């Protein structure tokens, strides 16, 4: 038997427990003031696909809608219930502190995409190949600096818009050529929908994607 862990949670009852991954039983292992939810497999799964990833998200979301949870990084296998109970016992203080951090809170994902390709993607005009190369390098450096500055400005704007509902926020500025900003915002569950309405879906130079509320994946970083 193997257990695929989905989440560590508080001990409040779950009125509507989700079904485990791939239709397997979802089991609950308890220790002290904590519960752990896992799918029980007779044999381990060696390869997962997109559907499994999304099914894990559905299970964690189903739990998160009813109780406070710390999502587990996917995939996390444990040998059996004793092994899982042992982890709960060994990490009790860490999990307790992490659960307190996310109690009553959810994560909103904000992804800001550049509306246009970067300036440095357009080749500069120059009379000779050498000069064209040097102008291209100069343009690339200047363009990326401008984009990073704009990314940081967008991060500040986001924090301003979330306002008093902001509990914690995590930013990646310009993580790729198409993304200006990737942020995770921890907000009170009751405020999540209101926060989403405050964030615009576009500005002159960017489009803004808002996802969630999700379980607090980014803020459950207990390693």
């Amino acid at each position, binding site marked *: 038997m193997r257990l695929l*862990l989905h989440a560590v949670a508080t001990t409040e009852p779950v009125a509507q427990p989700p079904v485990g991954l791939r239709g397997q039983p979802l089991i609950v292992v308890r220790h002290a003031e904590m519960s752990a939810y896992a799918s029980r497999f007779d044999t381990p799964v060696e390869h997962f696909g997109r559907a499994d990833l999304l099914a894990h998200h559905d299970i964690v979301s189903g739990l998160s809608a009813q109780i406070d949870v710390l999502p587990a990084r996917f995939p996390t296998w444990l040998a059996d219930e004793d092994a899982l109970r042992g982890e709960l016992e060994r990490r009790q203080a860490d999990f307790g502190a992490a659960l307190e951090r996310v109690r009553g809170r959810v994560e909103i994902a904000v992804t800001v995409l550049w509306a246009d390709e970067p300036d440095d993607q357009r080749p500069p005009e120059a009379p000779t190949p050498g000069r064209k190369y040097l102008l291209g390098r100069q343009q690339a450096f200047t363009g990326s600096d401008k984009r990073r500055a704009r990314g940081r400005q967008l991060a500040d704007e986001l924090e301003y818009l979330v306002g008093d509902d902001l509990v914690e926020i995590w930013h990646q500025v310009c993580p790729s050529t198409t993304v200006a900003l990737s942020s995770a915002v921890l907000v009170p569950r009751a405020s999540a929908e209101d926060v989403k309405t405050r964030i615009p879906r576009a500005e002159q130079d960017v489009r803004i994607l808002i996802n969630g509320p999700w379980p607090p994946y980014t803020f459950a970083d207990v390693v």
Partner: protein
Amino acid sequence: MSFSAARDDEMSLLELADRLLNRGVVLTGEATISVAGVDLIYLGLNVVLSAVENLKTPHAAPASRRRDD
């Protein structure tokens, strides 16, 4: 569905996958995930789990802020 909407859906899925694979509680484990025939992650030495893309392309250092009630 327009190209732009499809791209937005893809980006949202990537954001979600990044969280599922790279964040959250880490205990122990071992598995390979395959999405559309491409291995996304390999988890070996108990606690090291990272998207292959992240291993290839180091991201800019993230910034986080916290506000306690």
